[in-house]
């Protein structure tokens, strides 16, 4: 249905979308997730030309959207958009919001349109509000009307721009319920959302957007269960991490420890855990032989509470945990006592020690 080729979007010097190429097929429910400011909404708004791309091509049912001769409003009639701030027509009643499009654009008769509108309102559970004005509805109600308004135009595809971000949790569910229903009925939808559970359950495909591109895409199982790329993982697991680079033997241990302390405090680790981490760090560095290129990273998963310390040392293979490698294995003992698990790998010229800290 929608083919996007090398889409890019700049705002002056700021590059929001670098290079995006995707296919969206009929019946798919695509959820677009990712950190804020990575161009998710921009991408969505390019699809119906609310934003004009700087480069690339978009085809809707084979029609080139960016071509001068294309009747864009006509195409838009086939695409409905649901906004974060609802954007219901303030001067029209709920019913009129639904009927204005069909009457003016699709040429329906008033009675016809009214009837259809009431049906749709029943679908979203708001038939009794037909005569009300938008400013008399709650947020969740407004959004449901917005969805009904889109449906009134009998669209082929619906675009949702963070539909629940402006709603409080009680209202979120009523809107998600409607969207779920639409998905069940086979509507093609592209949804930008922060509702991870919803995305996981309802989508046929997930786009994780970061760095101006679709950083990773896959089925919900793939993305949520086994995110391949680092940032995806970080996002999914809501991993927070601290990185520290050491370039010489004369590194500043105190600076390092102070950063780690700050990290621990920030994430509200207990004193014991903090002490453990600092000790482990000191020890693990203590058993290193070369110091010309060490990358330390301390990661914390908000999702499951796990804390992981990884030490990558470029150099000759050296595994301090192996039996008999170190003369004095006090350090190793100390480390091991405070970890659930320690592992060693040698990869790409780097000694990688992974420590799973006990919490």
């Amino acid at each position: 249905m929608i083919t996007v080729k090398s889409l890019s979007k700049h705002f002056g010097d700021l590059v929001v979308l670098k290079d995006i190429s995707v296919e969206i097929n009929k019946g798919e429910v695509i959820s677009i997730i990712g950190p804020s400011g990575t161009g998710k909404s921009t991408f969505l708004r390019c699809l119906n030309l609310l934003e004009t791309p700087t480069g690339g091509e978009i085809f809707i049912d084979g029609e080139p959207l960016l071509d001068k001769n294309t009747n864009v409003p006509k195409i838009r009639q086939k695409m409905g958009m649901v906004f974060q701030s609802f954007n219901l027509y303030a001067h029209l009643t709920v019913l009129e919001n639904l009927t204005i499009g069909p009457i003016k654009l699709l040429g329906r008769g008033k009675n016809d349109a009214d009837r259809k509108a009431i049906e749709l309102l029943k679908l979203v559970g708001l038939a009794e509000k037909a005569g009300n004005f938008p400013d008399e509805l709650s947020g969740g109600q407004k959004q449901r009307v917005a969805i009904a308004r889109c449906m009134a135009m009998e669209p082929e595809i619906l675009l949702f721009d963070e539909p629940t971000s402006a709603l409080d949790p009680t209202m979120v569910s009523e809107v998600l319920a409607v969207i779920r229903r639409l998905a069940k009925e086979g509507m093609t939808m592209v949804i930008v959302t922060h509702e991870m559970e919803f995305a996981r359950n309802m989508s046929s495909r997930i786009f994780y957007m970061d760095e101006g591109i679709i950083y990773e895409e896959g089925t919900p199982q793939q993305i949520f269960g086994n995110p391949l790329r680092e940032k995806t993982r970080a996002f999914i697991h809501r991993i927070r991490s601290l990185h520290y680079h050491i370039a010489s033997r004369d590194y500043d241990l105190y600076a390092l420890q102070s950063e780690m302390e700050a990290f621990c405090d920030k994430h509200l680790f207990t004193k014991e855990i903090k002490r453990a981490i600092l000790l482990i760090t000191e020890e693990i560095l203590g058993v290193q032989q070369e110091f010309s290129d060490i990358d330390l990273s301390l990661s914390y998963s908000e999702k499951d509470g796990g804390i992981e310390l990884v030490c990558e040392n470029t150099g000759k293979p050296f595994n301090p945990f192996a039996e008999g490698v170190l003369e004095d294995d006090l350090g190793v003992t100390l480390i091991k006592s405070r970890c659930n698990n320690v592992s060693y790998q040698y990869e790409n010229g780097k000694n990688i020690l992974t420590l799973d800290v006990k919490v």
Partner: protein
Amino acid sequence: MKRYTPGIYLVILMQLFGCGKKNVQIANLAMLEGGKTFAVPTGTAADQLVLQRIPDAKMKYFNSAFDCAMAVREGKADAAAYDRPILQNIAGKNDGLVVLPELLVDDRYGFAVQLNNEKLKTVIDQVLTEIKTNGIYNDMMKRWLPEKGVPAPMPKIELAGTNGVLRFGTAAVTEPMSFVDENKNVVGFDVEFATYVARKLGKKLEIVDMEFGAMLPALVADKVDMIGAGLSITEERAKSVLFSESYYPSGIAAIVKDYSPPRLVKSNLKIKDIDDIKDKRIGVVTGTVHDSYAINNYPDAVIMQYQNYADLLTALRSEKADVAFVDQSSTKDIFSVNPDLGYIVENVYSVPIGVGFNKVDSQLRGRFNTFLNEIKANGIYDDLIDRWDRQGLKEMPQIKTPNPNGALRVGIVSDIGMPHTIVQNGELIGLDVELGRRFAAYLGREYVPIDMPFGSLIAALSTRKVDLITSGIMITQERQKQIDFSEPYFKSGVSLIAMKNNIARAAAVTGSIMTTANDLADKKIGIFTGTVHDAFIAKKYPQAKILRYESTADLIMSVKTDKVDAVMLDLITGRLLLKHNPELALLTDDIFNTPLGVGFSKKNPALRDEFNAFLKEIRQDGTYAVMDKRWFREDAEGAVMPSFDYSGTKKLVVGVSVEDLPYVAFMNGQYVGFDIEMIARFGERQGYDVEFVQMEFPSLIAALAAGKVEMISDGISISEERQKQIDFSDPYAQFRTAVIVSKNRLAGYEGEKSVTTKKTFFQGVSESFYSNIILENRYLLIVDGLKITIIISIFAAIVGTLLGALVCFMRMAKNKFAVGFAQVYIVLLRGTPVLVLLMIIYYVIFASVNINPVIVAVIAFGLNFAAYVSEMFRTSIESIEKGQQEAGIAGGFTKLQTFGYIILPQALRQVLPVYKGEFISLVKMTSIVGYIAVQDLTKAGDIIRSRTFDAFFPLIMAAVLYLLIAWLLTWALGRIEISVDPKRRRVAAKAGVAQ
């Protein structure tokens, strides 16, 4: 009862606290018995003398008699005791104190000489007898010891002094017997007496001032020959000195606080003329000629002397003095700062002002007199006087001496005041300064002003520190003894002024009453804008102030309400006005005559010649005489306009203004008047179809010049100025000017009460209603005017709104040129006053185009309205949140559709309230179309006013009608607002759903 208890407690408390001392008036000495406190000066015999009389009195000591009296006034002592004349002097100058009539102790003053100086004592006694016989004694008593007020100054007494010196010791702190005056001279009763003694002895008088206590010792030690300072004759003292006969029966009196109501404020004194001041309190500035003048001429008055004008005026205004003598040249300034003061007599007498020269410097003086004659001959002098004195301008022309050959040192007093010398912005300017500079230039010397106090001028001249002195110095005999004066270069008048509410009738003051036209010289005169009177007054009465009015009705109002002193207008109109306004009178009718002519465009001499030929005809065949009789000689209001047949073939457009019977007026729905009849006849005879177009008088000439009319006639005076722009026919009438004033300003009408019948308010209103609306079917004028106003308003609004929408569209477009054009349009149209725009369009853009001025009005107002409307639209559109547009676009609407279905309905709701206001503004703005000869509602009111001279009713009526229109519009637009408001339509929608 409960409510009152707090009050009662309060009263009791007040009694307890406030009334430790009861404010009881002490009326006699008996009331001072019983342990009362006396305030007495230290070092005198006062305390002893009090105790003699009141043994249980308590004493409080102060430095001087004055301090004692103040203590009494402030309640620190019950009474003060001291010599009666001194206490009387204090009581006279200070409110709140009164001297008890009964003396505590009798006392007698005497002069003292050395014990063995019988001879001197005899002389003193002789002098005393003499002056008692020849009246000087009484005079001295009156002068030095007046009941109330300040002692008069010391008279000058000549002393030949060939026989030596009489050394007179005194303590110059006992006013009024011996004290120091403002000029630091020792004066007083005793001093004057001593002078007489010295004179008798043929000696000079040497006054030795000392402490009171030192007098006796000094006499005994032969340091002085005679002592006196209110010295009491006591036995004690008589042991060491020889006293003369008592010259003043004094006594120790008691002065107490005066609780009686303060002296009745003397307002409403009703001073009519200068004779009335002979028993009043006359204020003067010490040392001026007014001082001695007042003293010499008004012996029965109380002369109040002050240090300077500021104090004098304060005294006048706070009713410490009743009248004041001031320099006439200062009065302008005085009255502008103190409008509650006015003249009793504008010029009591004049004193010549001259430049002072040292007596030995007769050559310089001669040169100055020559110089003065020169500048009087060549007009510079007149200009000088005119600028500084008459007009009161404060501009100093640049006068420099090129290559000065020495300096001319001129003594001046920099703050003497206008017009002589003042300092403005750090620069020395004034009549005397300019004169001095010119003289210096004349001499080829540099003008060097040397500033000093007035009192030092003569001294500086005598000691040759300066070459001459100026600054408004009056030439007096006294001064001429010390210095020589030039010929007078200025006359300073002396005015008598007082608080206006003390003058019998402010208007009754000479100078404000007018008798002849010459009295107009300095008045405020009202005239018609754009008439020849302007130039006339400027020339003949350059000092008069001219106020210009737009209509006769306004003129009349202004003179009735005293906004002007007199008005000038043509005699015939004037006579009509007097008929209707009995409170006005004719000052003169013989002031100014001009011929009247009909105006023609310079481009059309043929028409003018035609008209002149016509004029000749009607004069010859008697028609003119008939017209003259009908309109000018008989009552124009009763004239019947003959009917004419306006069916000529050629069109003739004639411009008129309708305020001026007998020339042009609008009565009973048609144009009437001499000019109208004349032109109508002209049209009839020459086969013209005459169309009269009516406009404001000042616009007539412009309209002729722009070709909008071919002739103009409205009793227009032929003047040179006008002849530059247009051509006139031969004169067809003479215009005589009347000067009209309020009756109570006219000499000869004084005392006459204007007879006005009292009307009830309703009577007044219904009479107004009748004369303004019903009479002569004037309401038709209003209806027509109303129609025009509404038409212009509505069409201008339509044009403006459409144009405004277009401009708004351009303003919000993507195209840079469109945006730029729109911005320029908005700035230009919002920044130009509508009246100016209107006249530019009518007189400039459409000059020589025969366009209906109503269309011009619609265009002008429409253009102006559009500028505001476009910005209103833009703001309201931009105020709709962006999401609405995005939803529309996303929903498949084109930009235009989104604007039309989504944005516009919402913007409309925002813009309507402001639009309503602007629309109403537009309606009111249309009231200016009278300027381009459109007869709208306001103009209709003006026309009626010009007939009834009733200012109130037509104006109110116009206002009410505008209000009505505004209210109607508000209501109509309100209905639209409702229909645009979606909430109102909910009812319908719900009904639909229910189906």
